[in-house]
């Protein structure tokens, strides 16, 4: 393992862990609407930490990703449910969550086992998150919503932007990996290709976490 490769892999985790730490600091001030988002940040931090330890121990950390995709979408759907409360019927977001959960469980059990990369689940999660984030942008243009969410609007916009940027780019990255090279998988890619993909992914992760940081910084503080 080259030193540069090691540094890059650690650097990719840093923004996630930094936002995780900042999230712990800010949690006591968080308004109820943002609680599911904080749980998502905590989950991301824990999963990132756990998967890096397994990576150092040279053990397969992909089961963590399967868990992260499932639980991550659960918290994100709850977050959007809170944000769009009163404007979108709750059952619609619940339906998305149930469909996604069912698909992820089937995928991890029969199609892409937990020791392999779950690209289909990641793509589905990205599709759902992109739909919800685009919808949130459109909804936030309405005066009625602006008035109702006036305190949260700034923070919400940053968080939503981060999610949109990361998940739309992830969609492309994972789509290209899954469909552009249908006869290959992550296991047989060259180390260099794997590394470049993760660096690109890491860049979008950094952007998302920076947006998360701004979202937390501008959130209305509840004493």
């Amino acid at each position, binding site marked *: 393992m080259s030193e540069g490769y090691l540094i890059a892999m650690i650097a990719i985790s840093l923004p996630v862990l930094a936002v995780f730490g900042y999230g712990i600091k800010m949690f006591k001030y968080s308004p109820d609407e943002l609680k599911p988002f904080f749980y998502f940040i905590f989950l991301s931090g824990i999963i990132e930490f756990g998967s890096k330890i397994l990576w150092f121990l040279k053990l397969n950390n992909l089961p963590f990703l399967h868990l992260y995709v499932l639980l991550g979408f659960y918290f994100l759907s709850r977050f959007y449910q809170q944000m769009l409360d*009163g404007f979108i019927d709750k059952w619609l977001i619940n339906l998305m969550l149930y469909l996604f959960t069912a698909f992820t469980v089937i995928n991890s059990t029969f199609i892409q086992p937990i020791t392999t990369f779950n690209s289909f689940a990641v793509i589905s999660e990205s*599709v759902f998150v992109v739909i919800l984030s685009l*919808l949130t942008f459109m*909804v936030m243009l309405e005066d*009625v919503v602006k008035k109702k969410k006036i305190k949260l609007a700034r923070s919400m916009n940053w968080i939503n932007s981060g999610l949109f940027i990361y998940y739309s780019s992830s969609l492309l990255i994972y*789509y290209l990996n899954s*469909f552009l090279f249908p006869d290959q998988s992550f296991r047989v890619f060259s180390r260099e290709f794997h590394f470049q993909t993760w660096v690109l992914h890491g860049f979008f992760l950094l952007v998302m976490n920076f947006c998360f940081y701004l979202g937390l910084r501008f959130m209305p503080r509840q004493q």
Partner: protein
Amino acid sequence: MKQEPNFITLLLPFALIVFLISVGVILLYQQFRKNLYKRELEQRTLEGKHQNELLKASLEAHEEERNRIARDMHDELGAVLSIARMQVIQIERQTNDPNLKTNLKEIKETAESALSSMRRLTHQLMPPLLDEFGMIKALESVVEKINCSCELSIDLIVSEDFPRTSRVTELAIYRVAMELINNTLKHAKAKRTQIIFSVADSHIQLFYKDDGIGLPKEFAPGLGLRNIEARINSVNGKIHIDGEQGKGFYADIKVPM
């Protein structure tokens, strides 16, 4: 042999993903617009209801105040004037001075005139017939007085089965009818007026018509008509007014019983 990437394997899944995202966003946005419209409608209904309640409360307070003033005038001012009149009569009996008797007689007449004015005012503020015998009797009494003055001839037609209804509704209709009569007397230059009371589909219907000058071409409702509308709204009623210039004025009012 490696499979060459083609449209089906490369672009179709991507196009499907983009399509799914677009359809998802559009459908959810439609749902959002529908919910927004529903919310706006509910809010407007709530605002209307709230305004109606405020109006009702304000009119009730207004009526209560009129009632209190009428009662106080009758009980206090009326009693004081009656006592003063009695005292004047007593002094008049006791004195033999003709000058003083003449002066006392004038004071007695002034007190009687004040008593009569006070009685007229209290009746206007809160007609005693309204509470005791209902709005039809109260209106009949008013119409009789107006017809006697020969200024205007009013035909009050009431259907046989016309019932008595709640005090609030009767008071509202009575005040509206009085305002309409007042408007006819003040502005319409009318000779004849027709007031018809009937009942249809559990609604009280009041049809009012005069043969006066009607409404001007560019008519803007004044305070009187706005008061009428407010009173009718307060009892969940509906009013329709019309009147071409030179062809008289009419109002059609429906109030739930």
